[in-house]
């Protein structure tokens, strides 16, 4: 049973990490707690769903569609709301509340457009492969999610560390004003960040929609709560933190359900989170008074 539970924990943790990546990226660069990330995630899932059911696109194309549509939504949110708030130097709480409003709007719009009922990807689309080791079952889809989460994390980490854009982004995270003085196109990189973060969220939406086979307008809310916890735990704005925070939450949740009680899953996971923050208020990878990207 333990082996199976560890695999369950790994896949659940990867799901959390995948979601948290985009969330933490926006925070690291834009310093915005973007509460619309859950809605963007949901839109990604619906974009892929529409591509599959309306246009009979193969899964790869559907994921690409999700990436583009949710990326553009992220860009729109940035252009219409976040940029204006930046220009007015609005305090931190304002963009947070504004993006909460975006969530309500986008969710209601999705309810109107796609209906309130749970939708699913057609059976034939789903990868059906499965690896069985004795009592342990691992589906190809789960393996895919774990792989994608780790791959994207490595990619983002590499970009941030070793490319020009990454250096520029880190400079912005340090101080947008100083970066602008150095000739960095701050607004352009903000747009790039908004696009990439939302695109990541959208891809997460498709993968999670595929894995749990449930796409609804409300699917963003529960994962947003977990996502916030993951990001706080990992250290706000830290990419490695998102991965490890996600895995931590996944393992804490699954193992407490398995060995304590299924009523205790969230209680134990969030209890541990609380304890860790008591010892390390900046999160696992956060550093005091230092902005990170």
């Amino acid at each position, binding site marked *: *049973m333990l082996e*199976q*539970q560890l695999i*369950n*924990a790994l*896949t*659940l943790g990867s*799901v959390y990490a995948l979601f948290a990546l985009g969330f933490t990226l926006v925070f690291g660069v834009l310093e915005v707690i973007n509460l619309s990330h859950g809605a963007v995630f949901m839109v990604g899932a619906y974009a892929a769903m529409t591509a599959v059911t309306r246009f009979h696109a193969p899964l790869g194309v559907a994921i690409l569609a999700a990436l583009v549509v949710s990326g553009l939504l992220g860009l729109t949110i940035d252009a219409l709301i976040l940029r204006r708030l930046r220009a007015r130097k609005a305090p931190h709480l304002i963009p947070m509340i504004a993006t909460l409003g975006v969530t309500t709007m986008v969710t*209601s719009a999705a*309810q109107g457009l796609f*209906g*309130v*009922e*749970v939708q*699913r990807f057609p*059976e034939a689309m789903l990868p059906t492969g*499965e690896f*069985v080791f004795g*009592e342990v*079952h691992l*589906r190809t889809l789960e393996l895919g999610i774990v792989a994608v989460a780790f791959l994207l994390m490595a990619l983002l980490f590499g970009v941030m560390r070793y490319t020009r854009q990454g250096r520029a982004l880190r400079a912005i995270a340090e101080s947008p004003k100083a970066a602008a003085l150095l000739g960095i196109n701050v607004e352009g990189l903000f747009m790039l960040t908004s696009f990439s973060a939302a695109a990541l969220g959208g891809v997460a939406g498709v993968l*999670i929609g595929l894995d*749990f*086979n*449930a796409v*609804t307008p*409300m*699917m963003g*809310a*529960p994962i947003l709560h977990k996502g916030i916890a993951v990001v706080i735990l990992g250290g706000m704005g830290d990419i490695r933190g998102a991965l490890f925070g996600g895995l931590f939450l996944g393992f804490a*949740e*699954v193992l407490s*359900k*398995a060995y304590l*009680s*299924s*009523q205790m*899953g*969230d209680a134990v996971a969030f209890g541990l989170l609380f304890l860790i923050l008591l010892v390390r208020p900046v999160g696992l990878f956060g550093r005091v008074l230092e902005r990170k990207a």
Partner: protein
Amino acid sequence: MNRVSKHFSLALAGLLAVTAVAGDLKIGVAEALTGGAAQYGVPIRNGFQLAADEINAKGGVNGNKLVLVIEDEQGKKEEAINVFKKLIFQDKVLMIFGPTLSNSMFAAGPVANAAKVVAFGTSNTANGITEVGPYVFRNSVMESDVLPVTVSTAVKHYKIKKVAVIYGNDDAFTKSGYDVFKKVLEDQKIPVTTTETYVKGDVDFKAQLTKIKATNPDAIICSGLAEEAANIIVQARGLGLKVPFIGGNGFNSPKMFEVSKTAGEGTFVGSPWANTNPNAANQHFVAAYKAKYGSDPNQFAAQAYDAMTIAAAALKTVKITGNLPADRQALQEALPKVSITGATGPFKFRQAAPKDGKPSGYDADQKPFIYVIRDGKFVLFTGK
């Protein structure tokens, strides 16, 4: 003009005015049309609308058209109370259908009961709903009437010795289903290997199912809504857990098959409604719903459709006077006498036992059908 004819013409004028008002029968509909519960509230609204349109197309009730005043109660208790007040005092409806969730009925039902207006729930199955008072009605069958039959039928068929249980513990509907299952299992002396829970919005049940698998039960009892239940079944099969499921009322939806496909084979469900029930009223309802809304109806739509038919049957026997309190009262008195055969089969009301010496409202008196899932369909279980 002499006094007599003056009075006569006044009375005549009054009568004309009344007829003009009575031309429309205003019925309030308070359902969750947005938010998480909208997945039930919207099909329910559709069921009402379909029935009302059909009744009006046939000339209405005694020549009066049914007019629905539809309000969104968002699946929230507070909103349900607000909407009930608006419908009762501002829109001056004859009666109210809804709200969607049992939780909301516990909150808003007393408002209607105090105002002596019928609150007619079509989707509230929690115990104690009708104890709110004599103005609270429901045509949703309580799980305590359905589940004992479901469990004993499945136990006999599969020769079940011990079961595992999984249920949603933060929802009045699934929690109340669990409470009934628990009592049924105690009554029928069936040991439980483990009891697992999840919360609304969960999509990953693998931790609980892995645990269940380790306890090696003969069947899994699940009190959950169709969406969750279908995912639970699919994930159970993904983990190599092959035992049959026994489900509560929430299982009864075509959604079960959209997700679970063949994974749900052999699942036992008890319900007042199934889309394949061959009675004529049901066949008509299923076809008409699909034609109007482009999707298959579910149990919630069927019960709403029947509820409107029940209300229309009661209104037919009521002489509408235009005096709102009197008409509301007459409707309350007419409803318990109605018996119809609708999409959910033969239906009549049964008054709930009085609570603290005060009269209670009316529950559904309906026989459950036991269905088993075969080839991705609900098949009426005939003992084989």
